[in-house]
């Protein structure tokens, strides 16, 4: 799967998340009178939207990496984190409202037009942050957490702001919450993709075999390549590879490829890397340049600009 298809799938999941969250949001809004206070109401609403956004976007990694065993845990973790993110985000938004309200907005009109959308967008931004960071925590990657943080925040803020303003612009439109939630989900997905691309140092494309055409966006500072599904670049169909065959690390701003299993030679541009030298047990290292063709065992990979 190319990075474009990957991004489209995440976008698709964001849109689906919005569609799925809508009926639940309607159910909660419909029963507003049953809540003891606006604070509880807002927190429950945030948690409900977070639940579905988190669940759907949590499935993204498993689907795009085509690793089924990652899908269900992704959904569950995403749902839990989404609930927390939604509730906490909206309480933070409410706190922001308190500060904004106390400082500047004594006017009902500006409260409605500025204070409310802004504080609510802050709440949606927090929700986005939590959902965006799910994958980063799963992968235990600071870089991915940063991607989620920034992408989720921007997506949540932009999507949330549009969602809130849509309500003000078209108050009579029955489906405005649906459209708003879809925009929110899509915005989180789009910004996650943009930030991911912006923070990636390169893309690895599989050139041959069963995973031909699949692309891996390299955001982490340590990327493992091998047969095991635990690797960032997991290549199970290539049976002659070791579980963890090679690694790309970011060292002083440069991507360095190293062979972890010297039994199998690692070639870059048809030339062996470090192999054969006396006493070299690491299998050698190579500073990657864009357009390098990597070959190890039966798999060939192409390193290109993100």
């Amino acid at each position, binding site marked *: *799967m190319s990075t474009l298809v990957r991004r489209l*799938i995440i976008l*698709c*999941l964001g849109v*689906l*998340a919005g*569609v*799925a969250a*809508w*009926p639940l949001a*309607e*159910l909660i*809004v*419909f029963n*507003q*009178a*049953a809540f003891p*206070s*606006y604070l509880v*109401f*807002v927190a429950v*609403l945030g948690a409900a939207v977070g639940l579905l956004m988190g669940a*759907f976007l949590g499935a993204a990694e*498993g*689907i795009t990496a*085509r690793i089924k065993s990652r*899908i269900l845990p992704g959904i569950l973790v995403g749902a839990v984190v989404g609930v927390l993110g939604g509730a906490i985000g909206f309480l933070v938004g*409410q706190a922001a*409202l*308190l500060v904004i*309200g106390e400082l500047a*907005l*004594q006017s*009902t*009109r*500006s*409260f*409605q037009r500025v204070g*409310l959308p802004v504080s609510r967008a802050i709440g949606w931004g927090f929700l986005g942050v939590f959902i965006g960071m799910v994958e980063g925590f799963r992968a235990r990657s600071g870089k991915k957490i940063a991607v989620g943080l920034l992408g989720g925040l921007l997506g949540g803020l932009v999507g949330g702001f549009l969602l809130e303003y849509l*309500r003000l612009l078209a*108050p009579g439109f029955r489906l*405005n*919450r*649906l459209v708003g939630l879809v925009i929110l989900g899509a915005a989180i997905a789009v910004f996650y993709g943009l930030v991911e691309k912006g923070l990636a140092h390169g893309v690895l*494309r599989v*050139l*041959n*075999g*069963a*995973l*031909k*055409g699949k692309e891996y966006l390299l955001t982490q500072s340590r990327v493992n390549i091998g047969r095991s599904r635990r690797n960032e670049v997991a290549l199970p169909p290539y049976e002659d590879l070791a579980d963890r065959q090679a690694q790309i690390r970011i060292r002083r701003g440069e991507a360095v490829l190293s062979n972890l299993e010297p039994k199998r030679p690692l070639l870059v*541009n*048809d030339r062996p890397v470090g192999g054969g030298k006396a006493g070299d047990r690491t299998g050698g290292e190579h500073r990657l340049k864009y*357009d*390098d*063709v990597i*070959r190890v065992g039966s798999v*060939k990979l192409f390193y*290109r600009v993100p």
Partner: protein
Amino acid sequence: MRHKSTAAAALLLVASLAWPAVSFALNLRLSQIDASRLLLSQRVRLYVSVTDDLGRPVEDLRAEDFRVFESPDGERFTRIPRLEQFRPSAGIAEGVSFLLVLDNSGSMYDTLAGNPTEDPQAMRMTHARDAVRSFLSSMTDPKDTVGLVSYNTYYRLHAAPSKDRALVSAALEGITRPSREEAYTELYHSLSRAVREFEGLAGRKAIVILSDGENYPYSEHSGRPHPELGERVVEHTEPIRACQEEGITVYAVNFGAVKDPNLESIAVETGGTVFDARDRRELESVYRAIHEQVAGEYLLAYRATMAPAVRKFVRVVVQPAGAAAGPELSATRFYFSSTVFGLPLTSLSLLLLIPLLAAAAALWLLTALRLERRKGPAALEVLHTRVGRASTRVLPLGTAKTVIGGGRSADLTIAGAPGVKEQHATVVYDKSKKAYTVVSSGEVLVNNQPVKTRVLEPGDVIDVGGATIVFDDGEV
């Protein structure tokens, strides 16, 4: 006090009952509803004015004498079980923000009887200025703020609301006689505009407008567009809505015989009242009465109910006891309620489950999606071109030879790349070896190594003048 309070009973705002056996009757007015903190603390604050038939505030009521009800539709009212705050004479305790709005149309420079005059002492404006000064000197509460605005064709802010009364007093002199062009009366527009002066101010807010004539819009009567408003004519409903949204009360003073027909409803619907004044003395007593009434209001705060509605209706019922004992009084007004996420749908339908199920089904489909390449013919795939443009992205390879080059006759044309020859490279199929070989006439890199001729392996990357092409044997 000779002024005549003309609080209307026409709308649902004030409903006071006469008490035949006793010489006095009380008036109950819900003068301001402050719902600005509704979403923050669930709290709504009510300013309630209870006056006797002379317009003087009744100050000895207790919290038990008040009952508060709330309704999302104005029909079904829910009793609020408990008041969170009760404060008599709230205006004195908290301070009040007044904005004095003075008519500065041409007729304000006539005599009280409406005749032209050149004697400044006889002019209405002089009476008005004196009355405002006496109002200012009667404002002894340091928490009060006051501002000054005049209007004719134009709206003019002379002093923004502040605690500095001397500033307002000095600003009074800045009101000058209008020219003919300025002498129209944009009453409704000016009232709407005045609402903005309260931005950033909390608590009790009141506009006191002195009017000596009808709304007389410039564009309607001069036949030319207004320099600021253009052709737009402001209706009287506009200031009502603006004041209701912001919780600002309008107290209207008709100075002279000509009255604006809508001023009374503006006042009443915003929780205020209308007064008539004919001269300086009456004007002074009217200002004093307004100040007394506002200062003597009760503040009632309660936790709002959660029923969603654009407008929430509040009803205050007072059962005076003790010295002021009398019949039950009731006043109802509404506030614009903030909604968190908009109003609910009118009904919930099971159809709502469809998007949820559809989204779940789509998610399941996505997880089942197999995006692996199928087995296919051998092909060349152009990943990208540094310069120029490729004629196709994927070119299946037959058994005949395939030409890559810059010319149109090439099978795979890299157009616009100066480094690419007409026929730069050829891929030929060797039947006996069942293999493809690239043969170059120009500079060709395979896996970043320069080659003249080379048997291609699956996944080899061919660089032809900056175009990156992958050889795909079609197998998976």
